[in-house]
């Protein structure tokens, strides 16, 4: 990479609520380069991208495009300047067509009227350029699969004649074979001289794709290096900043009555998105559910919890067969589910901490059981919840970590026998993460059976006693705790090989 950079960010700093999340980060991006931005959750990658996209304004630092300083007050300013962003959340209107979404806000006009044909044509061209002629520009977005929607997002970014595209975990929602498509798209973009800023947790992708890697940690720039000269282990060490093992607390001495008993067993369970799921979790055990996004981890949690019902197979909790037809039944059977989407599925944002924490007790008989309700303040303080307004504080004013503690308190209040944690540390800070880890250990020691779902492999490996690896809706295999990431990934992705072989 020689010559002047296409994009140069220097000394970018940003604070939220008085907490600094970026400390003077520098980053250069050249034309045709793929620059990977890595780091743990909360390291500041997304914030940096949002600063670049014009969603947030940096408190300090400057951004130069082609050597000229730019300032983006609004995402549209950034887009006009040729900096487009593919966010993690879809920014599409499901009721509008692909072409209408791609050109939203700057619809093509011919003689003063919006020209759908022209937009569709242009979209088709963009799609064809990427070798994706299969998506019809006139189909409504809600008819598309996740992967297709992801492609539409990229096309939308491209349609601005973008010279810089930043992508925030673009493969997060994609199945393995769909990732291939993304690889092809990225290759084309680079041929055209587009600079790509790429955020991902998946090391494989990073080493497959990146020219340069920048590591962020706790908002600080750790290092920027050429991918070719970097070894994965070295990268992980830089990301974590300390030996991996020390991050996760050690198991505690078990003291619960039910330790060792099978508390949750699933056999032959399936529905339209899962098949032949066999699973067993014992009291005191943490079982990790590994697998790529979309491999069926969350679906298992939802199946157990009666959100999406299993249509086949059996579920036993503490030896009793249960039919989880609704969350209510699951709760009564002693299950708890910490959902992955905290805000939309877990919290009542306008209600107080206390109202959230006692919600399940209020919703499921024995209603509002006084003894359990009285324990809630104790649970909240043992979780070290920080709320300036006390327990009457509305949850929406809390930080992500404290919000997650409220969700945990809500479930702890029910004294669950089996706890399912779906991405329990997503989007929360390091301190809160530690609290979650310690809590899991304590619960396990007390005899709770824990099923842990996480996209962060180190976390999954570090916390789990056993790992059940899923691939495309089925159990691909089981691994002992402490297995290497490579083994897990091989199992999680290996099934695609089988499938190809099995195909007629």
């Amino acid at each position, binding site marked *: 990479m020689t010559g002047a950079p296409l994009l140069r960010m220097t000394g970018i700093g940003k604070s939220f609520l008085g907490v600094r999340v970026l400390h003077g980060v520098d980053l250069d991006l050249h034309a045709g380069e793929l620059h990977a931005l890595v780091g743990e959750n909360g390291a500041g990658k997304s914030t940096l991208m949002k600063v670049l996209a014009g969603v947030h304004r940096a408190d300090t630092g400057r951004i130069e495009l082609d050597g000229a300083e730019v300032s983006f007050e609004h995402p549209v300013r950034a887009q006009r300047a040729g900096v487009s962003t593919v966010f993690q959340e879809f920014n599409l*209107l499901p009721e509008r067509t692909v072409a*209408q979404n791609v050109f939203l806000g700057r619809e093509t006009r011919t003689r003063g*009227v919006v020209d759908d044909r022209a937009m569709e044509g242009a979209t088709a061209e963009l799609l064809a350029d990427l070798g994706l002629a299969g998506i019809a520009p006139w189909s409504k977005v809600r*008819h598309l699969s996740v992967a*297709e929607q992801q492609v539409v997002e990229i096309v939308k970014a491209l349609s601005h004649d973008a010279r810089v595209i930043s992508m925030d975990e673009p493969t997060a929602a994609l199945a393995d074979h769909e990732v291939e*498509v993304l690889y092809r798209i990225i290759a084309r973009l680079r041929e055209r001289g587009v600079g790509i800023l790429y955020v991902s947790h998946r090391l494989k992708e990073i080493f497959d794709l990146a020219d340069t890697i920048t590591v962020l940690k706790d908002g600080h720039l750790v290092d920027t290096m050429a991918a070719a000269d970097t070894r994965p282990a070295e990268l992980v060490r830089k990301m974590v900043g300390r030996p991996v093992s020390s991050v996760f607390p050690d198991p505690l001495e078990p003291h619960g009555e039910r330790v060792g008993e099978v508390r949750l067993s699933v056999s032959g369970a399936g529905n339209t*998105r*899962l098949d032949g799921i066999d699973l067993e979790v014992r009291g005191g055990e943490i079982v990790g559910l590994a697998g790529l996004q979309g491999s069926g981890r969350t679906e298992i949690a939802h199946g157990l919890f009666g959100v999406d019902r299993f249509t*086949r197979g059996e579920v036993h909790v503490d030896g009793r067969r249960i039919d989880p037809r609704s969350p209510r039944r699951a709760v009564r059977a002693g299950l708890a589910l910490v959902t992955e989407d905290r805000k939309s599925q877990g919290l009542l944002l306008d209600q107080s901490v206390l109202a959230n924490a006692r919600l399940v007790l209020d919703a499921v008989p024995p209603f509002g059981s006084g003894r359990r309700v009285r324990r809630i303040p104790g649970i909240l303080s043992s979780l070290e919840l920080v709320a300036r307004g006390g327990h009457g504080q509305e949850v929406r004013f809390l930080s992500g970590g404290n919000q997650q503690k409220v969700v945990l308190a809500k479930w702890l209040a029910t004294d669950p026998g089996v706890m399912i944690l779906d991405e329990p540390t997503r989007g929360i800070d390091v301190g809160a993460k530690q609290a979650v880890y310690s809590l899991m250990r304590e619960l396990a020691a007390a005899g709770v059976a824990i099923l842990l779902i996480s996209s962060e492999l180190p976390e999954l490996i570090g916390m789990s006693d056993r790992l059940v690896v899923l691939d495309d*809706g089925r159990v691909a295999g089981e691994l002992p705790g402490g297995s290497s990431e490579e083994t897990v990934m091989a199992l999680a992705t290996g099934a695609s090989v089988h499938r190809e072989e099995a195909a007629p």
Partner: protein
Amino acid sequence: MTRVVSASRNLRARTGTTGLVYLALVIVLVVGALFVALRGGNLFTAANTVDLFTRSSLLGFLAIGQTLVILCRSLDLSVGYVTALSTMVAAITMAGDPSRIVLGIGATLGLAALIGLVNGLVITRLRVNPFIATLGMGLIIKGYLDTRFQGPGGSIPAEFQTFGLSRVGVLPVSTLVMLALAVAVILFLRRTRTGFHMYAVGGDAEVARLSGIRPELPVIIAHVLCSMTAGVAGLLLASRFGTGNTLVYGNGYELEAIAAVVLGGTYLLGGRGGVAGTVAGVFILATLDTVFNTLSVDPFVKDVLRGAIVIAAVAIYARGQHARTAVRLRFPSGGAPPPATVPPDPPTSPPEAEPAARGGTR
């Protein structure tokens, strides 16, 4: 059962809700004609056809405007009052003088637009819930009308009465104007940026904002246009009355218009639907009225039937929308292992075929 469901789902996939609404219209026409025939009548006489069209025009104007507002995820409960005010403004401005017709139209639409602007600003700038903002605006206008006018007033010149009373064949002029306006608004929604942005703001204001749309603007424009269509409705009423009448606000036009819009398949929470469906919704209601009239149904039974039919129709649409959520299925309910082609490599499969295929498997 399953077969019927999947057939209707396939149909829906091809034609969308609007197709379903027109199907409902046809069903209402056929069933209505059958009932009338059983009583020895004929629903499709020239007289009944004229009646049906005439009934549709007034509601049509109001419902077209309401569609725009609802598309933007707003609501306008003031249209009945704006209509009443407009009849007075038109009649008093024209004062029976043909040379003042243009002035009267201008004054009416101008005032209506101004009211819509205030509605839009109160909703977007002062962030008052549209329900309350427009209800309040309605009360304000009601108070003004009751205080300022005592009963009918003004006079509409005979030339302008052609708008309300003349017809071409079986088509009243007002219906033609209503249909022309519907076409214009359809074009507005499909061919202008503002129209596109209305869908965007109604669908997801945040996505719209991130795409560089000022989310307030489409909402304000929708309210202005909605009030103006209420103004046109007022002009129509005035031309039919030959005078202005304040008391028309008591006729519950706003709720009927909302019912027509929702019957037309427009989603009450915005972002989905359109004027074509609304026109069908209006014709459904007008057909019901004509059928009830031809059958001499008791006026109170009319209300009962109307209420029940609106609920039933919306319930049917709601079922359809529920089934439409795209779900990727790996395993058909039988639990057979996934064939290698499912899920297909998405970018290379024709997406149009997908909903139908999904409909079939469930």
